[in-house]
C-alpha cells in the first residue's frame, strides 16, 4: 500500500488525542475547583484525578496504538 496514505491514516488516528486532551483539561479544571472549594480533601481529589486522567489518556493511547500498528503492519 502507498506509504503516504498510511501516514495520513495514522495521523487521523492520532486525532483521538484531541478528545482525550479536552477531556483531561475539563477533569483537571474541575479538580482545581474542587481543591479551591475544599482544600482539606486535596489528597482524595488528587487520587481520583490521577485515575481519571489515566483512563482518559487511554483514549489517546488507543489512537496512538492504532496509528503505530498501521505504520508497522501495513507499511511492510
Amino acid at each position, binding site marked *: 500500500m502507498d506509504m503516504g496514505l498510511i501516514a495520513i491514516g495514522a495521523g487521523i488516528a492520532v486525532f483521538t488525542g484531541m478528545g482525550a486532551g479536552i477531556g483531561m483539561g475539563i477533569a483537571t479544571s474541575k479538580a482545581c475547583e474542587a481543591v479551591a472549594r475544599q482544600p482539606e480533601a486535596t489528597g482524595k481529589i488528587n487520587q481520583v484525578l*490521577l*485515575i481519571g486522567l489515566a483512563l482518559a489518556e487511554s483514549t489517546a*493511547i*488507543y489512537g496512538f*496504538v492504532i496509528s*503505530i*500498528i498501521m505504520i*508497522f*503492519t501495513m507499511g511492510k
Partner: protein
Amino acid sequence: MDIPSVFPDKVTIFGGWTVSTTLIAAFGTTLAIIVFGLIFRFVILKNFKRVPKGLQNVMELMVEGVNKFSTSIMGAGKKASSIAPYIMTIFGFIICSGLLEFMGIRSPATDLDCTIGLALITFVLIIAYSIRFRGVKGWLKTYAEPKAFMVPINVLSSVAVPISLACRLFGNMFSGLVVMDMLYGAMGYFAVGVPALASIYFILFHLGMQSYVFSMLTMSFIEEKA
C-alpha cells in the same frame, strides 16, 4: 532516527526456538522474583522482629498496601483476600520488568503479546469469579441485564474489557518507550541528564500509574460481575 518496532526483536535459543527478547526478560524477571522470594522466605523472614525495621518495613508496607487496596475496592471478605496475591503478582511483575528499561532491556509490558496475556488472565478471572460467587445460571444471567435484548451488547462489552486493558497497558508503556527513543535520537550526542529526568516520568511514573490502573480495573470488573 528509527522508531522502535511494535514487535520486539527475535532471538533464537536452544537451537530451533525463536522467541522475542521480551519473553526472555519476562522469564528472567519471574526467576529473579522467585529467587528473592526463596531467600526472603527461608532466610529473611526468620529474622523478622516484632518491631519492623528496614526491609521488613518495606515488605509489610507492600503486603498491607495490597490488602488495603483490594479491600477498598472489593470490600472485606473472601473475594478481596483471594484476589490480593494476584494483584501483588501484577504489581511485582509489571514494575520489576519495567525497571529493566533502565538497563536498556525492553520491558515485557511493551510487547502486545504480554499485555494480551495479562488481559486474558483478567478475562478468565472475571468469568471464574462470576461463576464462583453466582453459579453458572447467575453468571449467564449477568449478560441479560437489565433486559434480554441487551445480550449482544453485554457480550461485546465483556469482550471489550480485555482488549481495552491490553491496549491501554501496551500503549502507555510503548509510548513511553517511543518518546524516550525519540528524545535520545533528537539529542544525539548531547543526551546527558535530560533523558534521565524524562525517563523518571515516562518509565517510573507511567509504570506505577499503569500497573495501579490495570489492577484497579481488574478488581472493579471482577467486583462488578461477581
